[in-house]
């Protein structure tokens, strides 16, 4: 990166580190922080959408749909999320390949599962064996996002379902008394009012989501954990210009600090949003704000 980096062996400490921390591999490491942020940016709204679907399904009048919604919420509560991560990554991949297999190779007569193998025709492979590396990486990332969205969608569904039930029942009765249909009541009365009740749960969920991002590593994405292990491991002078001992501890310390900063900033931002939303609301937080502002008791 810098001009003086041509011969690292002769450099003084400070310059050596300046060179070491700007190698191509380290640039990959820094870019992987972007991967984490990208994952959060895509997953958060998608999970919210899944959650909304799940919560609506759990309230549906159609019995099978209601069962589906409730099972979706309950299952993720009872089973470790990491088990879901490991499950969905393979299961989704196989589901996609199987569907493509059905469409593209209808005259294939062998079974898809042969003993311990999962065999689909070459045209149904996801992604195609001939496609370039970046397609494979993007597909892996897409699977990871979908997995995160399904798992955290269930958490969000749990929160939103509770928020929907927290909306005072009188509001819904009033809507029905005015002759609104079931659909109108849901969209015009229930949904606009539930967000205040959902916000504490959703901000908690955001924190949980941030803290779940290192699990990307388990899904085979080259994320910050992957790079920290790669770069921190003992570097042999035969293969690199920057030999060093086992520094993985320091790399993970850096990740620890990164996450601490990230959650702290989120916490401050969420507090601020909550304060703004509670302003003038007939809730305990709103009441406390009114009192400190000098309102009558």
């Amino acid at each position, binding site marked *: 990166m810098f001009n003086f980096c041509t011969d690292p062996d002769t450099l003084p400490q400070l310059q050596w580190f300046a060179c070491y921390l700007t190698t191509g591999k380290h640039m990959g490491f820094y870019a992987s922080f972007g991967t984490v942020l990208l994952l959060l940016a895509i997953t958060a709204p998608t999970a919210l959408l899944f959650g909304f679907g799940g919560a609506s399904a759990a309230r549906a009048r159609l019995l099978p749909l209601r069962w589906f919604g409730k099972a979706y*919420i*309950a*299952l993720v*509560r*009872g*089973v*470790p*999320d*990491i*088990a879901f991560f*490991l*499950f969905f990554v*393979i*299961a989704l991949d*196989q589901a996609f390949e199987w569907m493509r297999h059905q469409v593209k190779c209808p005259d294939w007569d062998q079974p898809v*599962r042969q003993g*311990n*193998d*999962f065999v689909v025709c070459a045209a149904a492979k996801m992604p195609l064996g001939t496609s370039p590396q970046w397609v494979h990486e993007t597909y892996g990332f897409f699977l990871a996002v979908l997995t995160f969205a399904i798992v955290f969608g269930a*958490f969000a569904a*749990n*929160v939103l379902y*509770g928020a929907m039930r927290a909306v005072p029942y009188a509001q819904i009765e009033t809507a029905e008394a005015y002759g609104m249909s079931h659909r109108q009541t849901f969209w015009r009365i229930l949904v606009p009012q539930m967000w205040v009740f959902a916000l504490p*749960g959703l901000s*908690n*969920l955001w*924190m*949980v989501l*941030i*803290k*779940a*991002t*290192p*699990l990307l*590593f*388990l899904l085979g994405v080259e994320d910050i*954990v992957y790079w*920290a*292990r790669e770069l*921190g491991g003992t570097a042999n002078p035969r293969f690199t210009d920057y030999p060093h001992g*086992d520094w*993985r*501890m320091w790399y*993970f*310390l850096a*990740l*620890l600090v990164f*996450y*601490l900063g990230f*959650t*702290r900033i989120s916490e401050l931002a969420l507090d601020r949003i909550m304060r703004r939303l509670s302003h003038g609301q007939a809730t305990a937080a709103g009441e406390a704000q009114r009192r400190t502002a000098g309102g009558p008791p």
Partner: protein
Amino acid sequence: MSCWQTVQDYALRSIGIGERLLPRDDFTLCQQFTLIGSGMIWNVYFGLLALLAGFFLATALALGKASPNRALRKPAEWFIFVFRGSPLFIQFFFAYFLFLSLKGVSSIFDPFTSAWLGALAVLFLNTAAYSGEIFFGALLSIPRGDLEAADAYGFSGWKKFRKITWPTMLRLAWPAYTNEAIFLFHATTLVYFSGFPAWRQKGDALYYASYFADKTFNPFIPYPILAMYFILVTLTIVGVFGLVNRHLNRHLPAERRMRMRVRPTLLR
């Protein structure tokens, strides 16, 4: 090989008793049930010990965080902040590599590089921080009248804490603490995916489940089995904590009792 034979071979495989070699092909349903169940021994071990030890540190942390003394308050606040603000997965990795480097300093740290002690230590500190925050919240919401009544009756110091403050704190914190216990047991599955080596393939339930899923390319059998075991554990926790909850609330009239939520909310 009959199923009973498989159970004899593999039921205690995860703690090193029985057959050394894992099955390599022709996986039967019985093998999967037995081995994943065998791995559950580790999950229960980690969860139970971390929970029991963490309970006491959590009480101390809550008292520290609520203390007017700055020298006690600041360390407790920082401890809780560090362990609650960062992912457990990263904590495991960091702790493992920390113990690896400390191994060179003193041989005391040798056992810490294996999961049974090292991961247990991390889980213990982690759950203490989360429970400490829950207890702290409960400590602040103890009704003022209860404490005033204790003063009026002449309770003070240790006796007031033991008889009034602590039981009330536990009573208020219990539903959230139940939730934390469930999360802790779920978190134990991370251990063998985060640096700590599974020595001689002696791993926890998820370790074996992913072993089967990798070998058979079929996630639809081992993971549901794992899910079933964990739902059993979750139900057991809810049951046991429900009993304790009833005990903590036994002096209250029926309508004022803290009802255990059947659907615990997300509180982490």
